């Protein structure tokens, strides 16, 4: 392995070239929202930064649209990761340069003031996460990531317009989503990375800015352990992933100033655990915004895969029921599987795919789970939604069904075991009131993952302090959604980026 001080910016594929860096001021583990923002802030401050990402670096021209292939390439565990509990709940996490920002819809929401106030009051984060600093970071990110709302006539899809109509008729406040994008053509492929480089993932925005400022971003570099010596993080150990000639080669990088772990709400706590950190609450308080969809069939074509992958949100139930409703273009393969039955009747549903609209309910779940390393699964997630969570999910689904009918749908696919598969009239939506509270009766997916390394002033109840430094270990920081002490109720990318930006700037200046 060549010895190169990280002075000149570059993207490197370790699988082909090896990890050509052996020392940096800051080693950032993970390249998603947290890692990308931290790297950008540190590099802009003149620090030598290396970003290590275990997944591949993908070029726009390499990106496809066949679900089986893209899930395998872009998602952790080929998109087949799951939480275990009362029900088995799939978890979607990006595993590539850009992390989940590469495969999400780039929805931008600032952390609600109420949530930040609670973090200040109940978790002692007032010193670390000051509102004016966060506001400045939000403003900068919004400018640099080209944040703007989805626009009618540009990238709003027909299913977004239908949802708007349904929400208005149902009296639910809504709006077009604000997203980070520049030149979105509405190709509907956000889930697989943007083929036009319009959607602003960290891979095409903040990491490029960091590289321009001298950072080195290394793909296929899987960190297995943070090197902690004498109560201080001094570097990382890892192994090269991928299929190139350098595969399986071990590497070690010295961190002169600090190691920043930004590997996600699941991988960050487990990496700390594997590195010998033994905080009592490490891996606890895992939270999410689990969601599911209600599908409507319309008499006219909807073509939900034309337009931004997510374009509209109905917010009116966020503070009352605790759910957020969004349009989402679930891949056609998955949409078809949601139709009921088998045989000829089911097969003919494939002809109706262009007429389907898919709207999601995401719940700010009460449930808390646990993350731990597992020799069987790599990462084990124990997580069970509560009865109260499921009641709110069912209420959200009922409102989605109502909105579908009001927007003109002729059939609703409920997707709940225990009530009819299909409803054909708005008079039937009372069926949702009979929906069971057992999560095994629903097809839920967990996204927006939080906790596991929660921040707080008290070392006996938290993992990192208000500056996001791991309690009791110098030079080791966590800057991703794992530090969130509570659920947020909104899409977390923007909050993660802003918090990482503030914390990294402070660190660079220290």
């Amino acid at each position, binding site marked *: 392995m060549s010895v190169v001080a990280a002075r000149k910016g570059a993207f*490197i594929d370790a699988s082909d070239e090896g990890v050509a860096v052996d020392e940096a001021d800051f080693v950032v583990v993970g390249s998603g929202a947290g890692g990308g923002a931290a790297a950008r802030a540190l590099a802009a401050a003149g620090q030598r930064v290396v970003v290590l990402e275990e997944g591949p670096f993908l070029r726009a021209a390499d*990106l496809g649209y066949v679900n089986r292939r893209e899930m395998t390439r872009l998602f952790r565990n080929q998109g*087949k990761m799951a939480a275990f509990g009362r029900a088995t709940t799939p978890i979607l996490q990006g595993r590539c340069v850009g992390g989940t920002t590469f495969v999400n819809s780039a929805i931008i929401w600032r952390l609600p003031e109420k949530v930040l106030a609670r973090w200040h009051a109940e978790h002692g984060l007032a010193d670390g996460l000051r509102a004016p600093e966060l506001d400045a970071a939000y403003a900068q990110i919004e400018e640099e990531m080209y944040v703007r709302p989805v626009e009618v006539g540009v990238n709003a899809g027909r299913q977004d317009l239908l949802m708007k109509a349904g929400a208005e008729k149902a009296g639910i406040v809504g709006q077009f989503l604000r997203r980070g994008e520049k030149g979105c053509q509405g190709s509907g492929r956000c889930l697989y990375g943007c083929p*036009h480089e319009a959607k602003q993932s960290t891979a095409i925005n903040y990491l490029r800015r960091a590289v321009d400022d001298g950072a080195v971003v290394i793909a296929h570099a899987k960190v297995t352990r943070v090197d902690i010596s004498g109560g201080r993080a001094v570097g990382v150990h890892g192994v090269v992933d991928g299929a190139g000639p350098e595969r399986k080669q071990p590497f070690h990088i010295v961190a002169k100033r600090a190691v920043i772990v930004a590997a996600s709400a699941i991988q960050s706590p487990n990496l700390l655990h594997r590195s010998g950190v033994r905080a009592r609450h490490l891996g606890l308080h895992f939270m999410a915004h689990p969601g599911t969809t209600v599908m409507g069939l319309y008499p006219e074509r909807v073509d939900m895969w034309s337009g931004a992958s997510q374009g509209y949100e109905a917010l009116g139930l966020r503070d009352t029921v605790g759910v957020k409703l969004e349009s989402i273009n679930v891949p056609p393969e*998955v949409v078809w599987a949601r139709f009921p039955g*088998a*045989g000829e009747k089911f097969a003919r549903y494939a002809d109706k795919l262009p007429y389907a609209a898919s709207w999601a309910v995401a719940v700010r779940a009460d449930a808390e789970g646990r993350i731990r390393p597992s020799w069987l699964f790599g990462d084990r997630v124990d997580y069970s939604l509560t009865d109260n969570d499921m009641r709110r999910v069912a209420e959200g689904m009922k409102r989605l069904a109502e909105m579908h009918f009001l927007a003109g749908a002729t059939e609703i696919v409920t997707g709940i075991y225990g009530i009819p598969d299909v409803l054909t009239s708005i008079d039937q939506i009372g069926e949702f009131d009979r929906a069971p509270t057992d999560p095994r009766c629903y*097809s839920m997916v967990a996204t927006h993952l939080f906790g596991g390394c929660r921040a707080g002033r008290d070392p006996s109840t938290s993992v990192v302090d208000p500056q996001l430094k791991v309690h009791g270990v110098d030079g080791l920081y966590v800057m991703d959604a794992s530090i969130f002490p509570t659920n947020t109720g909104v899409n977390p990318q923007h909050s993660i980026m802003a918090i990482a930006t503030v914390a990294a700037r402070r660190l660079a200046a220290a």
Partner: protein
Amino acid sequence: MEITDTEARWAEVIGRGFAPQGIVLGGIVDGASIGEGVRDEARQSPWYFAIGLRAAILLVWLSPLWRLGRLHTFEGLPLDERVALLELLMKSRVYPVRLALMLLKLTVCMILVGEERALRRVGAYHLSEGETLVPLGKAQP
């Protein structure tokens, strides 16, 4: 994890119970091999998913015996009874059975509608219009 030729053949028969030939999107994906698709899926997936897939195939294959009390395999039933049995299993009160059937059904859908021709037929992602991808950005390798 590799599945056997026998399991691939069973998967083909079960898959055609979900989606009989000649019907899905006017038959344009009739040439797709569900068995080979399932084999690929098992090969590329984490071990626990592949085991789940194999268990689901076996569960359905033997379901006439344990669910209907008839001395047949799934293939031994006429098509209409296969379809009825699949629907019965998908409505099972036992969660792991429903989960296994959902896994199989989803995999079949991934294989069939995941075909390029099928995606074009349903008009997904503007594929019928053709598209031009942007060149690589300056900082990419």
